[in-house]
C-alpha cells in the first residue's frame, strides 16, 4: 500500500470549493511535489491529509490510516513542516528540542544535535531571536530528528531568500537521500521542485491537472513555434493543446504528446517553419495553470 493516498477528496470552505475530487497516490520512497498557484488547494489537501481539516467528501490516507482518525502513534511517524510555522517563540532552541522529544517517541536527540550543529543553530538562543531562514531550518531539523517515514512539507521555503532556500534544500536533499523516505512537498518555487522532485502533481483551482514523473512530464509536453508569412491564423483543433498564443506572424502552441501531429497541422495552415522547444518546469506550470488563470 502506498504511504499517502487521496480518494475523491473534496473540500468546501463555505460555498467555495477548494478541492474537487482529488485522487492521487504517492509511492513509497518518492519525493512528490504538489504544485499549484495560490488558492489551488495544496495546503487544504495537506491539512486534510494530516487530519487538521475534515474533508467535505472523500478520504485522505496516510501510512495506512484514514487521516480523519489519525492515531497518535501514526502521527509520530510523520514529520511535518509548514510555511512560517509558529514554533514556540519564547522557548530556547534546546527547550524546543526537549519539547519535541517529549512528544515523539522516535525522536533522535543525537541526530537533532548534529543537524543543529551543521545548520549553525545556537541552542541557547530563543526562537524569536532567530531569522526566518533559521526558524525554517530549525523546523526541518526537528521534523527530521523524528526519523519520520513520511515527511510532509507545505511550502517550507516560502519567503526565504535564494541563498537560504538553497541551503534549506541542500540540507533536505542530503538528509532524505540516504534513508528512502517518502516526501510530499508543496511549493511555489519551481526551480526548487525541479531539483528535488521525482514526481509532480499540478493542482489548478482544486482540480488535479497533472500527476506524473517529472521527467515524463517534461518529455511529453513541448512548446511549438510556428512562423507564418502573414498574420498567424487561429490555432488548429489539437488533442492535448494546453495553451495557444498568437504573436503577429507566430503561433505558439503548448501541447501534450504533440509529436507527429502539430507540425503537419501547422503546415496545412501555411506555417513556414515549426520548431519544437522543450519546456522547463516553470514554463510548463504556467501553461498548465494560466489558461483559466488570466496570465498572458
Amino acid at each position: 500500500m502506498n504511504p499517502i493516498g487521496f480518494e475523491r477528496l473534496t473540500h468546501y470552505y463555505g460555498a467555495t470549493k477548494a478541492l474537487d475530487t482529488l485522487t492521487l497516490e504517492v509511492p513509497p520512497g518518492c519525493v512528490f511535489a504538489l504544485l499549484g498557484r495560490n488558492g489551488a488547494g495544496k495546503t487544504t489537501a495537506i491539512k486534510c491529509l494530516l487530519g487538521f481539516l475534515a474533508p467535505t467528501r472523500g478520504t485522505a490516507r496516510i501510512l495506512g490510516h484514514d487521516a480523519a482518525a489519525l492515531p497518535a502513534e501514526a502521527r509520530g511517524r510523520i514529520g511535518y513542516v509548514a510555511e512560517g510555522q509558529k514554533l514556540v517563540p519564547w522557548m530556547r532552541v534546546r527547550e524546543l528540542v526537549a519539547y519535541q522529544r517529549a512528544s515523539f517517541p522516535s525522536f533522535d536527540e543525537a541526530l537533532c544535535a548534529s543537524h543543529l550543529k551543521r545548520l549553525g543553530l545556537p541552542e541557547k538562543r530563543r526562537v524569536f531571536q532567530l531569522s526566518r531562514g533559521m526558524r525554517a531550518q530549525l523546523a526541518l531539523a526537528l521534523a527530521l530528528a523524528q526519523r519520520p517515514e513520511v515527511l510532509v512539507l507545505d511550502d517550507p521555503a516560502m519567503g526565504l531568500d535564494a541563498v537560504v532556500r538553497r541551503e534549506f534544500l541542500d540540507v533536505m536533499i542530503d538528509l532524505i537521500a540516504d534513508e528512502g523516505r517518502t516526501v510530499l512537498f508543496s511549493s511555489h518555487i519551481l526551480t526548487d521542485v525541479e531539483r528535488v522532485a521525482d514526481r509532480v502533481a499540478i493542482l489548478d483551482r482544486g482540480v488535479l491537472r497533472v500527476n506524473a514523473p517529472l521527467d515524463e512530464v517534461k518529455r511529453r509536453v513541448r512548446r511549438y513555434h510556428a512562423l507564418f508569412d502573414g498574420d498567424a491564423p487561429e490555432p488548429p483543433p489539437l488533442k492535448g493543446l494546453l495553451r495557444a498564443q498568437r504573436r503577429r506572424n507566430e503561433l505558439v502552441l503548448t501541447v501534450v504528446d504533440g509529436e507527429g501531429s502539430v507540425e503537419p497541422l501547422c503546415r496545412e495552415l501555411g506555417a513556414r517553419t515549426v520548431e519544437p522547444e522543450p519546456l522547463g518546469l516553470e514554463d510548463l506550470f504556467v501553461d498548465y495553470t494560466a489558461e483559466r488563470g488570466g496570465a498572458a
Partner: protein
Amino acid sequence: MRPVFIRELKELSPALVPVLAFAVIAGASFAGPLSVQFDDILAVASVGGVFLGCLHGGLDRWRRGDLFALHRAVPAVRMEAARTLAGVVVLLLGIVALVITHRVTTLSHLADLRAMPQLAVAGRTYDHLGAGEIALLAGFVLAGWAVLRFAVGAVRIRWALPAFVVLPLASWSFLSRTETFAAATALALALTMLFSLGTGLCLAGDRR
C-alpha cells in the same frame, strides 16, 4: 505530558500577576474592618476565574492554527488534560494567595481551618474563612474559569450553551440567599464544571 503542561503554565503566567493581585486584594478586604458579606467576596473573587477563563479560551482559540503544537504523537485528550491542569494550577495559586492573605490578616482565626467544613450561608457577615467557605470559593472561581474558557475557546460553540444556562442558575440560587442556597449552588457549580471540562476533553480532537 509535562512539556505541554509547562508550556501552558508559562503561557498563562502573564495572567498570574493580575490573578494574584486580585486574590490578595480580595483576601485582605475580606478580613478588613469593613463588614463584608461572604457572597459579595465570592462574586468579586469569581471575576478572577472569569478573567483567566477568557484568557485561557483565547489562548486555545489562537492555538487552533498552531499546527506545530497540534502535530504531536500524543492523544489530543492528554494534551487537553495537561492544558486544563495548568489552568487549574494558576487558579489554585490565586486561591492559596487569597487564603494566605486572609490568614495573615486574621491570625486569630487559624483554628477555623481545623474545624469541620461548613457550607457558607448567604447574607451572613463573615470575618474569617473556614474550610467550607474556601471550598465554595474555589468551586465558584473554577466554574467561572471552566465555563468561560470553554465558551471562548470552543470549536463548536453550541456545546457551550448548556454551560451558560447552568451558570446563571447557580448564580440565581446563590443570590436568592436562602438557607439552602449553598447546596444548590455547589451542585450547580459542580455540574457546570464537569460539563465544561468533560465536553472540552471530549472535543479535544476538534482542535486538530
